[in-house]
C-alpha cells in the first residue's frame, strides 16, 4: 500500500495534473485474490494515467448491508459489484446508471459476452451492468475414497440414486469420513427442485410447496438423516471445503471457484457435471460491475467496468488465477483454451457442459428477505425441527405474505 502511495505521488508530480478517483467496491475479491485485483488496477492505471482506482472489499455476507447503507448515505462507490440475485433490488430502486449510451458508442463489446450473463443484468430493456464473471457448481469427488470403497467414479449420467448409493458405501462416520456434502440452502434448493421436476416460483403465483419440491427437499435432508452427510455439530464450524480438502468427504457440491484451493489436495480428485433427478439442472451464477447513478465520473467509471469485464488483462488474470471465469461468449473458445489446459481437475470440460443445463434462481425486489425466509425454513428441515413438508408449507405462506406486502 505504501509503495502504491509513493508511486502515486510521483506520478502526480510528474504529470502535474489531478487524477480522477474511481471508488470500487467488491465482494468477489476474497483474501486469496486481493493481489490479483491490485495487479489489475495497476494495469488499468498504466493504460489510463489520469485515473485512479480506490478499492474496498467486503465478504459476501456483509457486502449488501454495507452497500445499502452507503447508497442511503449518499456515499455510494462509483463502481460496485452485484450478483444476479440482488441486481433487481438495486435496479428497481433507481440506484444504477444505464450503460446503454456507452454501449451504443462502443461497439467493440457487441457479442462479446455470454448471452445469458449479459441479459441477466438488463431490466426493462435497459442494460445496467456488464457481467464480469460467471460460474457454476459441479460435483467434486475424491478419487482415493471412491477407490477405497470400490465405487465407480461419477459421470455426467449420474442421478440422485447413484449419489446416495455411492455415499453410503463411502461413509464411515467413526473414521470421520462422510459420503457427500450438499448444502441445504436457497441456492441448492432452487436447482434440486427443478431436478425433481418442480421449481421455485415466486411470480405470478408463489409455488414453493409442491409435490415435486417436497421430494427435492426430502432428498436433500435425507442425506443427513442417513448419516452420509456430516451434521453441523460433526463439522463444528469447519467448512465443507476444508473437510473435502482434509479427505473427509467423498463428494462435494461446490463452485468452480474452488479449483485453486483444491489444487493443494493430497489426494486425487476430479469433477463431474452435477447429477440430476428426473431431469438435469445446474447453477448459473453471474456477477456484474455496475455504476452508481450518483457518480460524478460516469465516463471514467465505464472505462473501469469495461476493463473489469472484457480486457485481455482481466481475462488472463481470471483464468490464470482460477478467479471464477470471465463472462465472455463461449464462441471465443480460444480465450478459454488456457483454462481447459490447466492440469487440475482433468475433466474441465464439465464446467462448460454444466452451463448447458444452467437455470437461474427466482428473483424479487425484496430478495434478501426472500432468501432469508427460504434459508430459515430449509435449515429447520435439515436440523429436524420441522418436517420437509411443514417447512415448505411455512415457506410458501411466508413468501406469499412477503410479496403481498
Amino acid at each position, binding site marked *: 500500500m505504501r509503495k502504491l502511495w509513493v508511486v502515486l505521488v510521483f506520478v502526480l508530480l510528474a504529470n502535474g495534473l489531478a487524477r480522477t478517483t474511481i471508488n470500487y467496491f467488491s465482494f468477489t475479491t*476474497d*483474501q*486469496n485474490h486481493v493481489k490479483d485485483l491490485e495487479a489489475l488496477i495497476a494495469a488499468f492505471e498504466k493504460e489510463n494515467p489520469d485515473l485512479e482506482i480506490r478499492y*474496498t472489499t*467486503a*465478504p459476501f*455476507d*456483509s457486502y449488501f448491508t*454495507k452497500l445499502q*447503507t*452507503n447508497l*442511503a*448515505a*449518499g*456515499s455510494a462507490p462509483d463502481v460496485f459489484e452485484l450478483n444476479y440475485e440482488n441486481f433487481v433490488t438495486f435496479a428497481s430502486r433507481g440506484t444504477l446508471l444505464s450503460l446503454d449510451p456507452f454501449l451504443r458508442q462502443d461497439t467493440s463489446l457487441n457479442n462479446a459476452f455470454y448471452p445469458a450473463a449479459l441479459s441477466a443484468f438488463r431490466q426493462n430493456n435497459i442494460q445496467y451492468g456488464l457481467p464480469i464473471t460467471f460460474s457454476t457448481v459441479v460435483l467434486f469427488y475424491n478419487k482415493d475414497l471412491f477407490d477405497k470403497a470400490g465405487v465407480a467414479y461419477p459421470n455426467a449420467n449420474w442421478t440422485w440414486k447413484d449419489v446416495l448409493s455411492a455415499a453410503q458405501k463411502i461413509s464411515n462416520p467413526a473414521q470421520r469420513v462422510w459420503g457427500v456434502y450438499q448444502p441445504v440452502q436457497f441456492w441448492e434448493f432452487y436447482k434440486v427442485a427443478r431436478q425433481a421436476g418442480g421449481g421455485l416460483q415466486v411470480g405470478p403465483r408463489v409455488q414453493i410447496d409442491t409435490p415435486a419440491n417436497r421430494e427435492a427437499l426430502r432428498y436433500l435432508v435425507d442425506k443427513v438423516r442417513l448419516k452420509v452427510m456430516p451434521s453441523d455439530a460433526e463439522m463444528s*464450524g*469447519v*467448512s465443507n*471445503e*476444508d473437510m473435502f480438502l482434509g479427505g473427509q468427504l467423498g463428494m462435494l457440491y461446490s463452485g468452480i471457484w474452488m479449483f485453486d484451493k483444491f489444487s493443494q489436495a493430497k489426494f486425487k480428485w476430479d469433477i463431474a457435471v452435477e447429477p440430476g433427478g428426473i431431469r438435469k439442472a445446474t447453477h448459473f451464477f453471474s456477477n456484474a460491475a455496475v455504476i452508481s447513478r450518483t457518480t460524478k465520473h460516469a465516463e471514467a467509471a465505464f472505462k473501469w467496468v469495461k476493463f473489469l469485464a472484457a480486457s485481455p488483462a482481466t481475462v488472463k488474470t481470471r483464468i490464470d488465477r482460477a478467479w471464477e471465469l470471465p463472462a465472455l461468449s463461449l464462441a471465443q473458445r480460444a480465450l478459454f483454451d488456457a483454462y481447459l489446459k490447466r492440469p487440475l481437475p482433468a475433466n474441465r470440460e464439465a464446467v462448460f457442459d454444466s452451463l448447458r443445463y444452467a437455470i437461474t434462481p427466482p428473483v424479487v425486489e425484496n430478495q434478501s428477505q426472500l432468501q432469508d425466509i427460504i434459508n430459515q425454513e430449509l435449515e429447520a428441515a435439515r436440523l429436524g425441527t420441522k418436517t420437509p413438508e411443514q417447512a415448505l408449507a411455512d415457506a410458501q405462506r411466508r413468501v406469499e405474505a412477503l410479496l403481498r406486502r
Partner: protein
Amino acid sequence: MTLRRARLDWAHWGLTLLAGLGAVVMLLPFLWMLSTSLKPASAVLSLPPELLPREPTLEAYREVARSFPIVRVFLNTLLVAAATTLGQLVVSSMSGYAFARFRFAGRDLLFAAYLATLMVPFAVTVTPLFIVVKALGWTNTYWGLVVPALFGAFGTFLMRQFFLALPGELEEAAVLDGASTFTTFARVMLPLSGPALATLGVFSFMASWNSFLWPLLIVNDPRLMTLPLALATLQGLYPGQTQWNLVMAGTVIAVIPMVVVFLLAQRWVVEGVTASGLKG
C-alpha cells in the same frame, strides 16, 4: 469456644474455595483465548484440544497484522475513545453545572426531558440518528463516530448530582474576588470534581472502546474501523471457516487495553459501570 472457632475456620475455607472455583470459571475463557492465540494454525483443531500450546508461536499475531491494518484499527479505537471521553467530560460537566447552579425558566422541565431520554433504548433512535449523521455528511468519518457519542443524559445527570452536593460557599469566595462564572467553574469547581470526572471519563472511554452497533452501521471504510468491528470482520475474513487462532489473537489485542485501564482505575471503573447501568 474452640469448637466455634473451628467451625468458623471451616466456613472460612469453604468460602475461599468457592470463590476460587468461581475465579477459575471467570479466568478460564481468558486463558483459553490467550492459549489459542499462541497456537500455530495446525494445532488449533487438534483433538483432544491442547490446553496450553505445545509449540507457542506469535504466528497468529503476525498474520493478523499482515492481513489487517490492526495497528491503524487500534489507533482508531484509541483516538475515538479518547476524543469521546474528553468531549463528554467538557460537555457534561458544563451542562451539569448549568443545571445545578443556574436558575432559568423551564429548567426542571428540561432536566426531566433529559432524564426521560435515558429510558429510550438505542434501537429506537438508531435509524433517525443514522439519517442525521448522513445529512451532516459524517458517515465514514471520525466525526460520525465521535460526535453523536458525546451527548447523553447520563453524563449531565452525574455531574449535576455531584455539583449539587458541593457547598455553594466555595464559589462565593471566588465571586467576591470578582471572578466570572466560567473562571469560577474552571478554577474552583473542576479541580474539586476529580472523582465525578474520573467516573464519567472511565465510563465514556469504556463505552466507546467496546461500542459495536453504531460503528457497524456508519463505518464501511476499513481505514476507519474500530476494534470490535475489526473482530467481527476477522471472523469472516477468510473464505470457508473461522481461523480461531487469528480471531483469538485479535481478541487479545482488543481486550488487553481495557484490562489495563481496569487494573489502573479499578475503583472508577466499578463506580462508572454500576452508576450508569452500562455493561460492556
